[in-house]
């Protein structure tokens, strides 16, 4: 079992620890609901060091990335970030990643903890005809995320000049002589930042934020709230909304697929019309939908839930499901099978919640 460099801090904060993607991670410190609300109302800090960092550089770096991901990497200028799935030939998803352009021929990929090895191997295999270097440096770096409306003020108080940092851009900075990278990105829908730095610097950075965060009500947030926060704003989670058998168009993130690109892995299959799509739904009958539960309509099995939960800020039981095209319009009536009984639900617009403050 792997531990992040913040493991001792989580234990001293009395976190409940669980195995996630082979890492011992905090699922909650206080309560999932309290942590979720603290991010929406104030600010929260997450240890996301289990995520991976893979560097792609060399003469053909841009050409290679343009071929291996579905979004348009040409759009990137120095200091910009793009979100994109990586697909197999059949359109199924290897992982959904962020690509940071440091400069020409020099990119950093941030991948999901559960897929780092898989992404690295896939990039090695598919880059054989390109002049690129692929380096997996995940074990050298740690990452923290700070999210919530009070975050910009907290960051400034902590000495980080970020007021000019636009959404999906990053800058280099320094903390205690460690080079750090600050991006305006996040997985909660709130205004927030993610910071990547060498492992040796993360403990003091974490404590530095806690000191600066006292007046902003900063709290540590675990993976439990991380999941309810992302679900509330309808962000995909690999293994649920995106998998090796659910493609990005089916997952309703077709905006990440640039079908005008001349060639890329998965293009042929992603051009086909889909027969099913990801929808958001709200429970009408009182019960909690969860991933894997089957969806019914007109007495037929028409799909399955990919994620579902009680959502603390909007205070409702809601979820995401892949359903056949016939039932994807808003207001469609569906049933969720929960413990062998049918419970009524209705298809609703996504996202379920949009934070007032700009992300």
């Amino acid at each position, binding site marked *: 079992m792997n531990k992040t460099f913040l493991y001792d801090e989580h234990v001293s904060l009395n976190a*409940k620890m669980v195995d996630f993607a082979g890492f011992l991670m905090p*699922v*909650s410190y206080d*309560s*999932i*609901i309290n942590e979720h609300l603290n991010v929406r109302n104030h600010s929260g800090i997450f240890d996301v060091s289990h995520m991976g960092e893979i560097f792609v550089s060399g003469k053909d770096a841009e050409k290679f990335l343009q071929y291996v991901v579905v979004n348009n990497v040409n759009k990137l200028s120095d200091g910009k970030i793009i979100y994109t799935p990586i697909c197999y030939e059949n359109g199924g998803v290897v992982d959904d990643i962020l690509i940071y352009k440091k400069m020409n021929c020099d990119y950093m990929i941030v991948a999901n903890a559960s897929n780092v090895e898989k992404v690295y191997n896939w990039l090695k295999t598919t880059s054989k005809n390109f002049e690129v270097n692929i380096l997996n440096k995940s074990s050298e770096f740690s990452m923290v995320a700070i999210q919530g409306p009070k975050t910009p003020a907290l960051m400034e108080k902590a000495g980080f000049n970020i007021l000019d940092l636009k959404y999906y851009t990053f800058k280099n900075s320094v903390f205690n002589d460690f080079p750090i990278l600050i991006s305006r990105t996040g997985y909660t829908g709130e205004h927030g930042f993610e910071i990547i730095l060498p492992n040796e610097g993360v403990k003091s950075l974490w404590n530095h934020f806690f000191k600066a965060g006292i007046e902003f009500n900063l709290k540590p947030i675990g993976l*439990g709230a991380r999941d*309810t926060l992302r679900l509330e704003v309808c962000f995909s989670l690999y293994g649920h909304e995106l998998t090796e058998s659910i493609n990005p168009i089916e997952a309703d993130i077709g905006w990440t697929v640039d079908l005008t690109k001349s060639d890329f892995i998965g293009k042929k299959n992603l051009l086909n019309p889909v027969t099913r799509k990801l929808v958001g739904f709200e429970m009408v009958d*009182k*019960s*909690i939908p*969860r991933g894997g539960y089957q969806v019914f309509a007109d007495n037929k099995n028409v799909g399955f839930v990919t994620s579902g*939960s*009680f959502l*603390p800020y909007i205070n409702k*039981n809601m979820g995401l499901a892949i359903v056949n095209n016939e039932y994807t319009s808003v207001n469609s009536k569906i049933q969720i099978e929960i*413990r062998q009984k049918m419970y009524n639900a209705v298809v609703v617009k996504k996202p379920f919640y949009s934070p007032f403050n700009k992300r």
Partner: protein
Amino acid sequence: MLNILENLKYTKSHEWIKFNGNVARVGISDHAQHELTDIVFVELPTIGKVANAGQTITVVESVKVAADIYSPVSGKVTAINTQLESNPGLINSDPYGEGWIFELETNDSGTDLLSANDYRSLIS
């Protein structure tokens, strides 16, 4: 150390039971609510339902998971804690008091019920 009341009996599946003549009141232990964290939904059993010792009688849902609650003894459900419909968090805040879940009419004094000490050893 989480709370274990001395005058209650416990099951291996973390329910507690309090006998009062031929009526028994059932809930889940402090340890159980702590493991589950925020309880957001309780599917209360219907009054009159026949309960069999060791079988699922109801379900308690936290944010992360749905957990089966097993009846510690056989009997018939005579009362349910309707407060839990609007305030399921009572199980977290007061698992042995206001967070009780249901009551049974029963002549079954229970087999395999654990004393407070035995339960303490189980969860240590």
